[in-house]
């Protein structure tokens, strides 16, 4: 049996070598969700990373502790990874919307009717929903290696059209090296009234390695015992 300095491990009575594991079937893991957080009120939601979860409620629980356990946070969204439509990634000097397929005349006409003043006109909005259009959340990546950031919503009848509408509505924004579009209905979002779940997070300094000021003590210990880096 494995003997560990960790008594919890000893209590498990684990064998020295792992038993030969049976091959796992494909898809025996949970699916993934993507999480976005808001650092402070009014700030855009920013992509923080994925979690594995069986459903959105559980994804939210996981994302909360995975991605907002250290710093101030005022909001959290999760959305199934599969619900996000992604454009091509382009170079830092290019514009991701240029990678969208060119529209047919008919598509161009449909996109042109999309109202860029989103949410301003209730009657137009209702007519659009009645015609099968839906809201989409749009995220831009400004630079490779950074995180996608929420830029706003558009209304469209498909993810492909949502990207075309976003190109028209957010067309003045540069740089954009990648765009995500996801149906607004597919997101699970924290309620404003539940913002207090993050009240104490900034106080938890013990979760930050930087809060443990040990370097002085290490230096002193080395001096006292005559140890050095070379030892």
């Amino acid at each position: 049996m494995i003997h560990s300095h960790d008594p919890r491990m000893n209590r498990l009575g684990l064998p020295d070598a792992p038993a030969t594991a049976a091959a796992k079937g494909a898809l025996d893991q949970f699916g993934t969700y993507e999480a976005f957080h808001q650092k402070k009120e009014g700030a855009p939601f920013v992509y923080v990373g994925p979690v594995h979860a069986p459903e959105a409620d559980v994804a939210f629980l996981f994302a909360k502790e995975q991605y907002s356990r250290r710093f101030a946070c005022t909001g959290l969204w999760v959305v199934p990874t599969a619900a996000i439509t992604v454009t091509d990634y382009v170079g830092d000097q290019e514009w991701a919307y240029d990678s969208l397929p060119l529209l047919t005349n008919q598509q161009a006409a449909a996109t042109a009717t999309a109202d860029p003043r989103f949410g301003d006109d209730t009657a137009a909005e209702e007519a659009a929903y009645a015609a099968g259009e839906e809201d989409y959340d749009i995220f831009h990546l400004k630079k490779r290696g950074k995180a996608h950031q929420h830029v706003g919503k558009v209304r469209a009848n498909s993810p492909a059209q949502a990207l075309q509408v976003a190109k028209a509505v957010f067309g003045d924004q540069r740089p954009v090296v990648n765009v995500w579009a996801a149906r607004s209905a597919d997101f699970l979002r924290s309620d404003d009234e539940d913002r207090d779940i993050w009240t104490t997070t900034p106080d938890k300094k013990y979760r930050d390695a930087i809060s443990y000021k040990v370097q002085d003590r290490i230096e002193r210990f080395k001096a006292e015992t005559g140890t050095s880096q070379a030892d």
Partner: protein
Amino acid sequence: MNPTLDLLYRLADDQLILGHRNSEWNGLGPILEEDIAFSSMAQDKLGHSLQLYSLLRALGEAEPDTVAFTRNAPQFHCCQLVELPIGEYDFSLTRHFLFDHAELLRFEALATSSYEPLAQVARKLRGELKYHALHANTWMKRLGTATDEAIERMQRSLDFTLPYALGIFEKTDAEAEIISSGLFVGEDELRGRWLESISKVLAQTALEVPDVLALTPVMGGRYGQHTEHLQPLLDEMAEVFRLDPTADW
């Protein structure tokens, strides 16, 4: 014992012991994300105990580390529920569900305690406890409506754990004064609110809830009577501290 000290020791000891127990899942949780979430909540509970031991310190009791790491089992005021070994994950989740509902409601009531320092701590922790209850409810609803195996395991854990959970509400000699002085609404009142609260969630599952108030509660913890599991927990928790009690961490 002075009613304020009596109440604080019970609260703090419950938080410390359950926080330590739940931390034993760290690195061993069912999946990575759940391991992180459960460990974070365990850490929160240790944080709660520190805040409560600090209130005791301000009232003239010993330093939090001394109180946490140098007492033996008969000097602890925690209920027996929190000291039971972590068992299988179904038990740990069920204990988390039953304890954290009581904890959330207790601190909600304490937010208006006549002892203002305690009321302040209670108000501050509100959001944190809300997440803990959300976590517990989500899993209880999910597993309580999942496969036959999940439902059977959760049912068995619920039946086993409920009598221990009733021990949370064990009263001490100070109870009458705690209520009359406005420190806290009292254990009977809390138990009523708790039963209503857990019943609402359990009603959304396939689990059968027995007549809870007809069960025989597992009492004694508030008076220092503990299971054989508490002393080994204390020895393990304090192992490093006792190597050099004067060390400054």
